[in-house]
Every structure is written in structure tokens, then in C-alpha cells.
């Protein structure tokens, strides 16, 4: 049997496969990762547009709505024909939208890779839908909102963003405000503008992972995407002013167990600054199932049903989120104080060096075990492409984890985990949350 290692080897790149990059003359980046998945390939297109780009009033949710419209056809492949050809490929295909990006993906038989290129290049360059289809599709978005909104957590999340942010477009969820969703059928002209602005090579990256070579992928990219014309639009996202005091919001709903989330304003993602990697390490050691807090509040005292925390990587400063599900709502303040005490202790005393090493090991083994099919790999590197445009950011981030010191942990705790940057959101049967 193999000898055990104390932590993940630090002298190698976290991503175990070579990443090939190739840029077309129009600025479209093409990324290939050959992977041992016989006969199978994943084909992704990452467009760096998300709800962050929704700067005009009245059009929140539009990036997501537009993702729906991308399935409404072209002159060459009208909707029915597109469906027919996609069905023939037997691929699993879909798309999703988030704060900073929209991702279109297909996973299927490598023999159909050229057909996938052809279908995707056609709709990315020549999307053309009837105005009526546009109006009808808005109903499906409303249906999506309707299913999501059944969850009190979704309702709270919508209010949380609206409270935590004043001017930045992270103020609204990717679904958008309901009044804007209802109004979507009236925005046909804006949809044409939206396509014109963002569905351009300089906003997009192709990612292909699986049983394929980069030469083959690059040749297909040249054949199908070289005619795609660059755009010239750049969006001005409002800068969120520094939060000066604690905010709070509450949802009165006794239908689920009491819930609290604490949200600190965090930094934007960077693969060169230590802040975000240090925050990831800090969150992991504060809220994992072996953390002091988890053991005390969940296992020993049984005040909580669940405790977790983390920060989502985003292009602009977003939220560091701590979540707790309660047995009794009367414990809101106690748990809030315990979490604050744990953070204050780290600001003063730092953490145990062994725990720091173990946390780095945890982060790296978690990643190493998460990439065992082409779809997961494409998804992993796409999440760095939308942040910086470069898949190598993945390797750079994990190299930074190794450099995080006790001083860095104290620095980020002091800088970001402060009450003046905090928004507390609660759900309980009471009229008010009542957490100080």
C-alpha cells in the first residue's frame, strides 16, 4: 500500500492535466484539456456576462432571460430543427447564468463534436428569433421564478442582496426583480441590443475537455468561429460605496426551522492577492464539521441543525456568507455572539499552525477528488475563465493557498469580518429577527 502523506504535495500544479490555449484573430480564446474519457467530450462556451452587467433599470434578470432566448433558433436552425439535431447527437446540453457569467454546455459523443461546433457557432453568430417567441419565452422565466420562490430561503436571498448592496448590480439576484420579469415581454428591442453587446468573441471562451486533441479543437474553432465579429461595448458597473454600519433584515415565516445568515462584504476574486485565498482558508477552518464552532454549537450544545460558511468567487466584491439553521429562534443572539467571539479570537491570536496546514490540505484534496469526468473538469476551469479570462488562474489560486500564513488569516479576519460590513438576515415566526 502507499505510504501516507501529511498533506497535499505542494510542488505541483493542482490541475493534473495540461491546459492548451489558442486565440483566434477575433479574440476568441479556445481552451482544450485532453482527458481519458473514451468517446466522450464536453463542449462549453463561457460568456462573461451575467446579472452583474444589468446596469439599466427595469431590465434585471435579463442575462438569464437571454440565456433562454439562445435556444429560440436561427434562420438556418429554427427552434424545432435545432432541437432535432441536438437530439440526434444524444448529448446532455443546457445552460446556466450567474452573477458574472453565462455558460452553455454540451457533453456527448466525440463523433458529434463538429456538429456541436456548427450548432453553437450558428446561434452565437446568427441568433434570430421572432418577436412573438421572445414574448412567449418570458413566461418560462416567470415559471422558473415561481418554482424558486416557493422556498423561503430564495425569498430571503432576494431581500438580502437588495439590502446588502446599494448601487452595485449585485443588488438583484440573477433571476431579477419580479416586476422586471413580468415586464420582460416588452423588452424585445433591448434583447437585440443585449445580444449585440455581449455575444461577441472578446466576451467568450470555448472550452473542450475529453477524448480530443487541441489541434483538432483549434481547427474546428477556426472553421466555425473565425467569422465571428468583435464588438466594441464595455459596461460601466457602479462601484459599491463602503458599507458604514451593520444592516439587518427579517422574513416572518414559521413554516421552516429558524434560520440566520451573516454576510460580510468580501473582496473581489484575485489570483495574485492573498485576500481571497486567506478567506477561503479561514472559512474552512471556522465552519467545517471539525471546527470548534461546529463542535460546540451543533454537536455538543445542539443549538444548531446546521452551520456553514464560505465566500463565492466573483468579479467585484461580494459577500462572505455564514449560515445557521436553528432548533430554537431564541438562540439567534447567542449563536451570533459565539460566531463573533470565534472570529475575534482569530483576529487576536491567529490559529494553530497544524490546523492551518491541515486546512490547506483539505482544500487541495477536495479539489483533486472533484474532477473525474470531462463535464466536471470543464465546469471547474470555466469558473476561473469567467473570473479572470484565464483558466490558469485555477493553478495560481491553489499555489496561493500554500502561501497563506497565520498573519494573512489575522489580516483578512480584521479587514473583512467586521460589523460595519455585516448584513444579518433571519427567518422565524416572529415579526422581527431581533439580532444585534
Amino acid at each position, binding site marked *: 500500500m*502507499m505510504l*501516507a502523506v*501529511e498533506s497535499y504535495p505542494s510542488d505541483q500544479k493542482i490541475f493534473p492535466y495540461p491546459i492548451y490555449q489558442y486565440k483566434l484573430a477575433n479574440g476568441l480564446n479556445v481552451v482544450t484539456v485532453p482527458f481519458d474519457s*473514451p*468517446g*466522450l467530450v464536453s463542449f462549453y462556451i463561457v460568456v462573461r456576462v451575467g446579472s452583474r452587467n444589468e446596469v439599466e433599470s427595469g431590465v434585471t434578470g435579463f442575462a438569464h432571460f437571454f440565456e433562454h432566448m439562445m435556444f429560440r433558433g436561427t434562420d438556418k436552425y429554427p*427552434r424545432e430543427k435545432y*432541437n*432535432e439535431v*441536438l*437530439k440526434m447527437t*444524444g*448529448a*446532455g446540453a*443546457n445552460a446556466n447564468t450567474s452573477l458574472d457569467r453565462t455558460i452553455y454546455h454540451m*457533453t*456527448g459523443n466525440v463523433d458529434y463534436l463538429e456538429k456541436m461546433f456548427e450548432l453553437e457557432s450558428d446561434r452565437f453568430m446568427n441568433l434570430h428569433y*421572432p*418577436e*412573438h417567441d421572445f*414574448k*412567449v*419565452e*418570458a*413566461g*418560462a422565466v*416567470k*415559471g*422558473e421564478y*415561481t*418554482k424558486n*420562490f*416557493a*422556498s*423561503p430561503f430564495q425569498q430571503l436571498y432576494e431581500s438580502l442582496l437588495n439590502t446588502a448592496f446599494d448601487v452595485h448590480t449585485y443588488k438583484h439576484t440573477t433571476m431579477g426583480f419580479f416586476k422586471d420579469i413580468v415586464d420582460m*415581454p416588452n423588452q424585445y428591442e433591448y434583447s437585440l441590443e443585449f445580444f449585440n453587446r455581449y455575444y461577441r468573441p472578446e466576451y467568450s471562451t470555448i472550452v473542450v475537455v475529453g477524448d480530443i486533441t487541441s489541434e483538432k479543437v483549434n481547427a474546428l474553432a477556426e472553421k466555425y468561429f473565425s467569422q465571428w465579429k468583435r464588438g466594441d461595448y464595455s459596461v460601466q458597473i457602479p462601484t459599491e460605496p463602503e458599507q458604514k454600519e451593520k444592516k439587518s433584515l427579517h422574513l416572518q*415565516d414559521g*413554516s*421552516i*426551522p429558524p434560520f440566520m445568515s451573516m454576510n460580510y462584504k468580501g473582496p473581489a476574486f484575485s489570483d495574485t492577492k492573498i485576500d481571497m485565498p486567506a478567506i477561503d482558508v479561514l472559512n474552512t477552518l471556522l465552519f*467545517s464539521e*471539525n471546527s470548534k464552532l*461546529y*463542535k460546540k454549537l451543533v*454537536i455538543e450544545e*445542539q443549538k444548531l*441543525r446546521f452551520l456553514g460558511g464560505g465566500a463565492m468567487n466573483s468579479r467585484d466584491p461580494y459577500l462572505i456568507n455564514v449560515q445557521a439553521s436553528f432548533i430554537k429562534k431564541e438562540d439567534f443572539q447567542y449563536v451570533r455572539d459565539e460566531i463573533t467571539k470565534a472570529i475575534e479570537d482569530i483576529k487576536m491570536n491567529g490559529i494553530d499552525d497544524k490546523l492551518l*496546514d*491541515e*486546512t490547506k490540505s*483539505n*482544500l487541495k*484534496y477536495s479539489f*483533486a*477528488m472533484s474532477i*473525474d*469526468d*470531462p*463535464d*466536471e473538469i470543464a465546469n471547474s476551469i470555466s469558473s476561473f475563465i469567467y473570473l479572470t479570462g484565464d483558466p490558469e488562474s485555477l493553478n495560481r489560486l491553489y499555489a496561493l493557498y500554500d502561501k497563506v500564513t497565520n498573519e494573512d488569516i489575522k489580516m483578512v479576519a480584521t479587514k473583512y469580518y467586521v460589523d460595519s460590513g455585516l448584513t444579518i438576515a433571519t427567518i422565524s415566526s416572529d415579526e422581527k429577527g431581533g439580532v444585534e
Partner: protein
Amino acid sequence: MKAIIISILLSGLIMSQQFVELKQTNSSKIIVKFMFKNGSICDPNGKEGITFTTAQLITQGGTGELSFGDIQDKIYPMAASYYSSVDKEVAIFTFQFHKDWIDQFYPIMIGLITNPSLSQTDFDRVKINQLAYVDQVIRASSDEEYSKKALEDFLFRGTNYQHMVEGKSVSVSSITLDDVKNHYKSFFTKNNLMIGIAGNYPDSFIEKLKKDIAKLPNTNPTIPTPPVVKMPDGIDIEIISKESAFGSAIFTGYPLNITRADDEFAALMVANSYLGEHRKSYSKLYQVIREQRSMNYGDYSYIEWYNNGGGNMLPPSGVPRQSNYFAIWIRPVQIAKQLKMQYEELKDVNVGHAHFAIRMALREMDKMIKNGLTQEDFEATRAFLKSYIRLYIKTPGQQLGYLMDSKMYGRKNYIEELGVLLSKLTLDDVNKAIKKYMQIDNMKITIVTDVSEAGPLAESLKNNTVSPMTYSNLVKAGLSEEILSEDAATENFKINVNNVTIVDSKDTFK
């Protein structure tokens, strides 16, 4: 490359543990699955949910040597993970770890399975979470998941398939730690266990596992028989009325006397994929309800249980069932209260879109039953499935899971065999299977909706009232003749309603 070895170890007089191996020398991780053939059908009357409690307590507790907290400390640098999943007929424990940590993780894994601590404090924690789920979470967090679980409660009423695997309020409340200890001894034994191992492990690992697993209880469990459910007579509908629902979430079902074990299942699979493949825009239900009319987010049909359809794009393994049913899932559609608020021109509507959506789904299915598939539809759908089923097993974990499930259905390798069966199919096979297994006159339907919608919707369904589709003026103006004429034929399509009842959300799963 990936060699598949299936071996059966015989040890002892009557014990037969099955081992499924999937060695992958290019992988860095190891996955081990312990599948106990028990499931929620083994829950005694009055203790419904106890198989789930037992499985949860094993993964949320310690071993003879280590507390839950100790285990978390040890596995933290490894980022090893494990979880349990319980369905009607199985409980499965899945462990995943990196090959670098095989020696350190092994004793924890084997300790949890063969020597779980089953302590009172861990039990208290598990039970309070389970109670929160059955009392609150299932009713409050997703109306579509709620309607699906409520449909099972309705369709399997009076049988051992009726209760949710998590149990119900009164039964979970009554479960004690002693009950769980007894349940573990009776139903988590070496005599009803299948073990699957995938990834990069040495041969010695298997040998050690085979030896150590003998420490499990040696009881011979009596596993109840899954129910044979009578076909409903007509269409029975339960409307679950809750405060502040935003839409109407709909699930339908009727018993189906066929499973993956039957070769004919492949033919039915083609028919079902054509009608309502999960999360695919190529299928009829999706096209008429979502794509052409945008009444909701999606509409699909099923010929076997599909776990967590809201979260999964591909069917997960680990839910083998002998008692099967056909289902249609209509995701939440608009209710009258919302339509009135959204559009001035709809201020007079009394019923939202649920009645029309049900009619549209059943009418579409009826068309398929009457007309069958064309040769072209058949070829296209079969070609799709032949490639698509390969995606079910794109990860090592899913490959292993599907191999283990195969054995539960008396098959060696379901996905491989399905590929062969699909290749052999003819159009005639598919159309015969449709006639044999598909019908729209007898079924149960559950609808989770708002209190304001429940009454008018019940009346509309009971009386087969004409239910015209209500569009906003903006959309209405552009509707084609074809859509309008289909709408006209749908709005008074007669469905064979037998009974409609309204149930308060507080009174479900009693």
C-alpha cells in the same frame, strides 16, 4: 483501461455477499459503496422512518473507538467524505477518499459500518433534524418536491411504499435509540449486503474488506415484499392547500407493472423519452406546455423513480425499486391570484393554469397512445437514447452505482444491456409497449397550491369545466392559428375525474 470485475464471495453457510469491483488505475480516488437491501419498506408500523434514522446515525455518529468529532478531526486534512442515502428498498453508504489516505481512512470506514457508536447524543441530533424535515421542510421548501412526495403517499396508500423514507411526524417522534440499535442488528447485516469498490485500490484492500465485513451482525433479515398496487378506478385528485403558495405544482402517477428487469422496458423507455424526457426540450410535453405556451419551467414523464428531479439532470443510481409507476411532472404553473395581479386584462380569471396544463399533458399522451410513434420519431428517439444513456455513467461513482443497481434487477450491466436492447428494437415493439402500458383514464394526481386557488380549481376539475388558457394580451396577439386551435381542443378535453379532495397542508403525511 477500466476493467470490470464482478465477483461473488461466498462465506458461511447461508451468507452471500456480493462484491462489485471497478478498478481504475488512472484514478486518484477510491469509492466504496455498502448497499444494504432493506430500505424504508423494512420500517415497522409506527416506526416509519427508522431505516433512515439508523443510516443517518451511522454517518452522523462515531465508531467504537472514535467519536463523531474525532472522526471529523482525522478526515479533515484528507477531505474524505461519506454519506448515506435511503430509498424504499435499499440503504446505501458511500465513502470517497484519495488513494494517498487509504490506510488512515480504512479503519474509520469499516468502524462506522461494522461498529457504529449509536450514541444517545448523536441520536438526539439526528432525530431533531429528521423531525424538522417531516414536520416542516418537506412542506415549505419546494412545492414541486412536496407534490411528488404527496403523490407517493396517495398512490401507495395503505402499503409499505406509502410513507416517505424520512417517516412521518408521529412515527419519528416515537423512535428511540433502542429501536435504532435493534433495527441495525436486524436489518444492517452481512446477509443483505452488496459492496461496490471503484478506483485505484490495491488487491489487498479487497481482501481486508472481505475479512472485516464479517463483523457485521449475522442476523437473517426478513425483508417485506414491495406492494403490488391496484390500478386506480378513474382519476383521483388531491389538492394540497397551503398559505402563500406562488403557483400550482402538479404530479400524477399510476402503477406500472414493468421494471428495468424486463427487456420490454427498453421499448417503453423510447416511448417515454419521446413524450417527456427529463429536462429535455425535444419531448412533446415540454414542447407544448413550456416551449409553445411558456406556462411553466418544464414538463416531463417517467417510467421509474427519478430521485431529486429538481437537482439532477441525469438519473442517479441507488434507487432500485420493484414496485414501479408511471408519472408526469408538471412544474408550477400560474394561479389566478398571481395572474390577476400581473395583468389588468386577466382581472376576472377565477382559476389559474393547472386545469388546462393537466388537460394538455393528458391529451398529448392520448395522442401518442392513439397514433403511436412514426418511424422517424422512433429512429430519432432511439438514436438519442443510445448515446444519452452513456452519460448516466460518466463518473466512476455513477458507473459503480449502476453496476450495483443492475444486480438488484437481476442484470449484469444494465447500461450495456440496454444499449443492445435499444439496438434490437423495432417501431412495432415501441407502439405495442405504449398500448400495453400507457393510458390516461386511471391515475392519481396531487396538486400543491395556494389556499385561494384550491377551491375554484377543485370545482373546475370535479365538473370538467371548460378551462381556456389565459394569456396576457401581449402574448395572445401573436398566437398562431395552430396554437389557438390546439387550445380550443384542449380546454374542454374530458378527463376521467372520479374524485377531488382538498387537504390542508398541515394534514398531509398523517
